């Protein structure tokens, strides 16, 4: 039995857990991160699944990583390098394509040839979205108040929220209200008419959700993805050198340099509770580790229902967590390629290979993919978001060869009959066929592949339901309701036990915000 006494134990070495550890270590606390797998990163991981080919296995792009975290933890010094994705290329069924390039004028001309009206609208749309994203951004760092409590602290929190709302212009306030409730399709169709443009833009509204672009409230997810920034450039998406695993490695390196300990192959079984207080954890192998506080960066279902006996939690919370929606709807197909995919719409190697390639020819295409998932099937014609990391970072693959990361929707966790090897294979096939329609050489280019279903996401990273955000970004699971009402500020009913992952405010994406805020709350509580 290990009797080391730490100030804090972090369950889970994903990016939020690592951020929490780094902040605590930075404040002089003795911290240990317990990671179940043999490597850190969680879903922010790069693995050499096929020798020589590094797959940015689950997540693949970054934009929402908080600038203050990058600064505070000196991540660039620890190897963090984010390279902007300069373009999005959408091939069309008629052999044409539409693209958004790095150059504003080039993009405008590109849209103009499809629709002069859309070219006009495009600039104003970007401005409107940027304004709304700026307006709501402070929410990411606000501690959600509990509206049901009359406690002065919460009333003050509500007041602050009210003052924040009052600081936004009337026009923007209504804009925000609209965007939080509209469907991505309705919102976009008020601005644009070109189908592949609509399809591509609407895709941001449904990433990681179990909703379609015509589902109400998906316009919010669109805004959520718009809030990112790289080097101060608003809304730019980027690729991290070394894949998203490079981000985890940088944070891990920073945490270690600040004095945090990281242990892999350490699977936690339970939180040890004495007199209503968390005093440590018990590992699956029987070891016990003591600490003043425990921060769980894994999903809310594990955090509340696995690691803690139900007798320590109020019935309401247990009920809420059992009802917490965490349906995975996405999969990944990672490919090792012998040659670049050659798109008939724009043949040859070119700028398009440095950016994102989106199989999203129209809103209805994505909506039909969603319909399949609703009824327990993976999409016959899936939405695919593709990047080719090796073009931007040649270290990801052997010379002349490439790795291709394909994010796919929809593939429901609860597929009819359950996921098995045959279904996984069929799912992978469907994705390759979807790409083949636009790049016929893809099949012969494939040297090796890794197909990941939501069930695989769950079994590899342990995220319940395989939902990439540790819980869907639904209106009733956000802000003061995430992961549950009354428990939306990182504390739990067990003293000294905190939730620090994407299942807490402000939600999922590679942000690091939950980890940082949970660490700050724990320190405020005096660990």
């Amino acid at each position, binding site marked *: 039995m290990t009797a080391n006494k730490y100030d804090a134990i972090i369950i889970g070495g994903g990016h939020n857990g690592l951020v929490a550890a780094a902040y605590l270590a930075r404040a002089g606390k003795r911290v240990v991160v317990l990671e179940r797998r043999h490597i850190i990163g969680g879903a922010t991981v790069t693995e050499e699944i096929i020798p020589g080919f590094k797959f940015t296995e689950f997540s693949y792009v970054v934009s929402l990583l908080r600038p203050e975290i990058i600064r505070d933890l000196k991540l660039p010094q620890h190897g963090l390098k984010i390279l902007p994705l300069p373009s999005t290329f959408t091939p069309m069924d008629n052999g044409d394509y539409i693209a958004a390039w790095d150059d504003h004028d080039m993009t405008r001309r590109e849209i103009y040839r499809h629709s002069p009206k859309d070219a006009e609208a495009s600039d104003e749309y970007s401005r409107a979205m940027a304004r709304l994203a700026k307006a709501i951004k402070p929410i990411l760092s606000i501690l959600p108040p509990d*509206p*049901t*409590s009359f406690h002065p602290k919460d009333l003050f929190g509500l007041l602050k929220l009210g003052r924040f*709302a*009052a600081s936004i212009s*009337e026009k923007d*306030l*209504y*804009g925000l*209200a*609209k965007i939080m*409730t*509209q469907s991505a399709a*309705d919102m976009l169709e*008020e601005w644009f008419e070109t189908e592949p443009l609509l399809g591509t833009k609407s895709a941001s509204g449904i990433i990681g959700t179990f*909703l379609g672009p*015509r*589902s*109400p*409230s998906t316009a919010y997810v669109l805004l959520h993805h718009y809030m990112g920034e790289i080097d101060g450039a608003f809304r730019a998406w980027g690729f991290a050198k070394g894949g998203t695993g490079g981000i985890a490695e940088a944070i891990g390196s920073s945490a270690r340099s600040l004095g945090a300990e990281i242990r892999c192959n350490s699977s936690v079984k339970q939180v040890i509770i004495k007199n209503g207080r968390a005093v440590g954890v018990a590992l699956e192998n029987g070891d016990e580790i003591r600490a003043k506080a425990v921060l769980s960066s894994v999903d809310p279902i594990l955090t509340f229902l696995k690691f803690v006996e139900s007798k320590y939690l109020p019935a*309401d919370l247990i009920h809420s967590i059992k*009802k917490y*929606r965490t349906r995975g709807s996405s999969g990944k197909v990672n490919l090792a390629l012998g040659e670049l995919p050659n798109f008939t719409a724009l043949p040859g190697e070119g700028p398009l290979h440095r950016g994102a390639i989106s199989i999203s020819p129209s809103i*209805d295409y994505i*909506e039909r993919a969603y*319909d399949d998932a*609703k*009824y327990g099937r993976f999409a016959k014609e899936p939405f695919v978001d593709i990047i080719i990391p090796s073009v931007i970072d040649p270290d990801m693959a052997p010379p002349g060869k490439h790795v291709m990361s394909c994010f796919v929707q929809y593939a429901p966790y609860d597929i009819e009959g359950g996921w098995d090897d045959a279904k996984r294979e069929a799912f992978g096939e469907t994705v390759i066929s979807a790409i083949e329609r636009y790049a016929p050489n893809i099949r012969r280019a494939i040297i090796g592949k890794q197909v990941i279903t939501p069930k695989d996401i769950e079994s590899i990273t342990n995220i319940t339901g395989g939902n990439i955000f540790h819980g869907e970004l*639904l*209106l*009733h699971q956000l802000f003061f*309701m995430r992961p549950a*009402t*009354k428990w939306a500020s990182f504390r739990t009913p067990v003293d000294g036990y905190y939730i620090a992952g994407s299942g807490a405010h402000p939600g999922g994406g590679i942000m690091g915000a939950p980890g940082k805020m949970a660490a700050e709350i724990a320190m405020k509580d005096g660990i």
Partner: protein
Amino acid sequence: MNTYDCIIIGAGHNGLTAAAYLAKQGKKILVLERRNIAGGQVVTESFEEGFQADSLHAGGSLCSDIVRDLKLTSFGLPATAATKLPFVSLQGDSHHLILDADPAKAAESIKRFSANDAARWPEFLSFMKQTTRFIRTANATIMPRLPVDLNFSEGMGLAKLGLDLRLMGGRDMMRIVRGMPMTASEFVDEWFESDIVKAAVASLGIHGFTLGGMGAGTGFTLMHNWANRGGLSHAAVPGGVGKISEALVNAVKSFGGEIRTNAEVKAIQVEITTCKGVLLSNGEEIPAKNVISSADPKHTFLSLVGPMNLPPEFVWHTQSIKMRGSVAKVHLLTDGKHGIPEGTIVLAPSLKYLEKAYDAAKYHTISEKPYLEVTTSGNVVSIHFQFAPYALKSSSWDNERKHLEDLAINTLGEHFPNLKSAIKSLKSLTPKDLEEVYGLTEGDLNHGQLMLDQFMFMRPIPGWSNHRTPIDNLYLGGSGVHGGGGISGASGRNVAKVIDK
């Protein structure tokens, strides 16, 4: 020149309610109705096919304070039946789920599907009583134009609503706050485990709307419909829903108000930004100090006022209002041997069934396996059909009427084998009919879908939810404003309060 204090466009139930309140105050008012009968959607009509039916709504009741204030019982408003009829969810094996108004009887029926759900039923009913209270209070609250121009009484109204909610207790308050953006499926999933019980209740979330049970905001519409009906089943009106409109008409006339039918308003006359009166289709000009339009916002602003008289951004927002009605009605005159029991009968066997019916609407086709709600009155069977989208992708309603009728009858006939042979004549109302006959843009019964982004302070458009318009002395008072939707008359009552003396 004895100018009218107020002209009300549209003798629907909201227009009539507003007229009655104003006339009772001694105002000189005139109601102008395009059709030859008053009542709008709240009518019981005789069809040339030889029978009469509640054309669009199978039941409903005005807010109790309206009935009281306008003394409507003395004007012929029938008392609603003491006991409500049951809500029946049809099952393939004919062992239907019968949700009787008596909680004990309902629980007995639920028990056959899930003992746990039967046990939760009474608590669920208590909770829905709370949500009903909240919805009714919210609909009685004028939604101010936040955060500017917040006057004292509007602020007080909001504060009262907030306090009302908070006093329900933290638990129920959060259930309601969370329940509003939820899907109807999630809403019922919080309480029940049986898909059959869930689907039956969830169907209230989609009834009358172009929304799916798996769409966000149908938690709110579920609460809304429950509040308007006072429960699951319709509160039928003895003699037909038209009796409500008749009583309102009598009240208006008795208080000294004028009502003119066959008087279509062609334009609202505007001088710079002030409303001066109306122009009828026959060329007659009628001046007035104030005008209330109870027609839908799109018709009111884009047709009657005209975009040239309105700020460009206001026009853009109005054009963006989503109407897209998808309700059709099929009324059948039978020989009485149809076999359909009394009550509100629904075809909502599972959540997936309801969702699939809605999918058709997304792609602008008619649901081949529709959601139906059926009521009977004597020998008349009235079928409410969803989804029948106004804008069809590869056809038009002129060509699809027969298809709609067949679908409705055949689908219902699967559960009631005697139905087809019992039919003597029928009358169908497609979304196009709803637009042309009843003046509903895109056939939308709600004057604008009651979606999350078109409700409360965003209804009809953000910033204009307090019945006022950019035109001085012109007010909007129909279902398209906050408080509207359903036969409550709330919008009409509210707009009468808002008019500056």
